[in-house]
């Protein structure tokens, strides 16, 4: 089956077809969606986090001092408000992804936010996860990988998630003055930085490299109420050796040296290989051919990690059609693709009240295996199709496909028309034969949305 570029690009590089927008005509139309994803009209920022943090402190102290009914109510109110932040973020992200005509930029936001996974560990820092995406990922979508790496590694959300904020040089001034606290290094950020974010787990580095890297970064940390990101009194004294180069030491600029180290990690050939393969796995196939990876790796190396160059190589990739439907849509992609295919109004979705949005989006996504902002580990969401199309995961998709359309659309669309809207020329003969035989419109629509045709890309 030959598939023309617009359909292929919409399904594989974006969030699928929509009756309200034509698919992107060419590579330029796909790439034009990247700058659109770079900013939000109302971004979430560290200022939001600081405001929440301060409000929380005030209320908590008031309640500790006097456990009165009004204080208790205020405490509960702020806690409930904070607990809702991830789902509000989800609705905003669904709307944003559904509304874009090409969607490639939002797919990249999803990819990079997952590559640099952060997770909140308490109510107060829920908002940090959204701030991380809006401050570290989006603005760096069209720059060099090195710029995104630096923004992500130094963002407070990452410092908190990978336990770096308490990491203190064992011989630092701060630690020596407080021997009773037994302060020391935490290697988590250093390890994930090389293992997940740059070189990759198979690359040629040692435990000594990880430790030296952790020591180099000891000064980096933040206070919820301030702007400062570097605390010299916590830094381990002396120069550190990483992959044969020396960083830091007497008289050097602490953050400057950390940034120089990140630039070198970004430029490392192992990083180019690791990230090229990861892009191929995400966009093309769970098991991409060496040739497919090489196309991206060449673009990466030739451009020194210039992301727009790499995106172009991906959009024009010779295996884009040959690997069609080798990937399963993750639950977020599946849901956005359904919102688009059904032609739902993204703003109506975004503005849903708490109860229906939990029933229709937040809880179903959890059942499908993708609780928003809660991946299990720093390696982010799984990529392989069989991790998602499990009995539980598929049952949740079928249930949702049966329930959701009727909650938004009255009357329901004719399934035969929806079939064309959702899948264009890519409908398989089996699905084309099955849909008209469904007993009701609701079941016909569910067959389309639950089909392998629709759940693969």
């Amino acid at each position, binding site marked *: 089956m030959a598939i023309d570029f617009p359909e292929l690009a919409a399904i594989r590089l974006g969030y699928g077809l929509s009756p309200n927008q034509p698919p992107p005509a060419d590579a330029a139309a796909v790439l034009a969606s990247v700058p659109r994803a770079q900013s939000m009209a109302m971004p979430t920022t560290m200022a939001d986090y600081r405001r929440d943090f301060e409000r929380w402190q005030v209320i908590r102290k008031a309640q500790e001092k006097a456990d009165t009914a009004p204080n208790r109510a205020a405490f509960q109110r702020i806690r409930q408000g904070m607990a809702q932040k991830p789902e509000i973020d989800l609705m905003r992200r669904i709307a944003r992804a559904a509304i874009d005509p090409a969607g490639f930029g939002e797919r990249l936001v999803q990819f990079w936010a997952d590559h640099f996974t952060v997770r909140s*560990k308490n109510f107060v820092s829920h908002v940090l996860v959204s701030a991380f995406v809006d401050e570290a990922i989006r603005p760096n979508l069209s720059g060099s990988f090195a710029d995104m790496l630096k923004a992500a590694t130094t963002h407070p959300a990452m410092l908190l998630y990978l336990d770096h904020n308490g990491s203190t040089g064992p011989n630092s001034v701060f630690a020596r003055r407080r021997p009773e606290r037994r302060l020391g290094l935490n290697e988590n950020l250093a390890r994930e930085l090389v293992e997940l974010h740059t070189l990759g787990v198979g690359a040629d580095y040692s435990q000594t490299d990880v430790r030296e890297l952790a020591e180099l970064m000891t000064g980096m940390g933040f206070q919820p109420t301030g702007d400062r990101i570097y605390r010299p009194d916590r830094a381990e004294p002396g120069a550190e050796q990483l992959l044969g180069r020396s960083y830091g030491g007497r008289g050097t600029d602490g953050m400057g040296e950390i940034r120089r180290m990140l630039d070198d990690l970004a430029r490392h050939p192992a990083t180019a290989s690791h990230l090229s393969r990861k892009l191929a796995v995400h966009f093309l196939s769970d098991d991409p051919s060496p040739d497919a990876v090489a196309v991206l790796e060449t673009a990466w190396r030739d451009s020194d990690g210039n992301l727009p160059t790499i995106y172009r190589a991906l959009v024009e990739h010779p295996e884009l059609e040959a690997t069609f439907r080798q990937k399963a849509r993750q639950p977020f992609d599946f849901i956005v693709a359904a919102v688009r295919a059904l032609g739902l109004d993204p703003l109506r979705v975004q503005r849903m009240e708490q109860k229906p949005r939990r029933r229709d989006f937040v809880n179903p996504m959890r059942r499908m295996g993708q609780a928003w902002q809660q991946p299990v580990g720093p390696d982010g969401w799984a990529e392989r199709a069989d991790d998602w199309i499990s009995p*539980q995961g598929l049952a949740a998709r079928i249930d949702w496909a049966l329930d959701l359309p009727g909650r938004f659309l009255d009357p329901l669309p004719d399934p035969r028309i929806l079939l064309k809207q959702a899948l264009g020329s890519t409908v398989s003969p089996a699905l084309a034969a099955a849909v008209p035989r469904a007993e*009701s419109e609701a079941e016909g629509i569910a067959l389309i949305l639950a089909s392998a045709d629709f759940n693969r890309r």
Partner: protein
Amino acid sequence: MATRRFVLKSGLAAACSVAAHPLMSTVTFAAAPGDHRLVVIILRGAMDGLDVLQPYGDPALAALRPSLSPGPDGGALDLDGFFALHASLGDLMPLWAAGELAFVPAVSTPYRDKRSHFDGQDLLEAGTGEDVPLAMQRSGWLNRALQGMPGARAETAYAIGTGDMLLLSGPAPAMSWSPDARLRLSPQAERLLGDIYHDDPLFRNAAGSAIEIVSGGGSDARGPTAVADFAASRLNGEARIAAFSLTGWDTHARQAQVLRPALSRLSASILALRSGLGPNWSKTTVLAMTEFGRTARENGSGGTDHGTGGALLMAGGAIRGGRVIGNWPGLGEGQLYADRDLMPVRDVRAYAAWALAGLFGQDRGRLEAEVFPGLDMGADPGMLS
């Protein structure tokens, strides 16, 4: 619901395909590893062990807890003259009398001092200390245990519910299922799904299994014991391990009111397992564990804050219960951890390890090196009958 047709169809298809889905194969029953059942319940939010298992015989308790943990005089149920059971677990007293309920009063994971729910739960489910690389903390101890069980298949272990269970995550195949999946398909829709998935083994097998599970259910999928009912139904089949979590234990304020529904749910879940498992209850061990305990002192809001040592609850016909197992560290001057928390006297992982050794014949060397890296299992606490 008419499901036979779909299952039959997908089963036939699986038989012809190269990679037959394990759930569809027919030679599996004999390969199930043994007859013992293990249920692990993760109590998310840090259960207050001192309120659940009240050490009213400790002279320091009353001063630490003016309103909470009142002992038998305040309605708790005396167990052994020293400890009393929280009144909301009263329905479990027959199990205590039958030797099917036991407690370990003062245990913890190796997690110390930072007292974050998320990190504490991660370590509890990973079964590691903080000193191992993060990569090792990304799989759960139950999954690593499964990897050492000859004959274990996907159906052998179930993570139940919609919360992510790190406990069973990892390379070994395990099932996850949420009993609120409904799949209300007409027979025609089910047939048509069978048609459209026919040539895609991944979708065909996943849907076949899902429909099979739903049609075997039949309990109230939204009731308070839906998860435990479902666990029992699978454990009566080929499953031998089930894990799920219960929330509602983070009792910073008004603990007397807040803890009640959480305890009732726990009690109802254990009783549902017991009645659902029927004769198999005699081969079952339930471990209910939490990420850490709570402060020994009551706070100003009638609650307790994040602490260290906490209680482990065991139930089941396979345990030697009706007793409190392990030492009591005391609540007096100098006996608390950091002058604020119950002192843990043993690693909670040791009890989980001894359960795996006793129920599934897991080798001690492997348990201490791979399932719970760095753990010293110590002496056998003799918790199984």
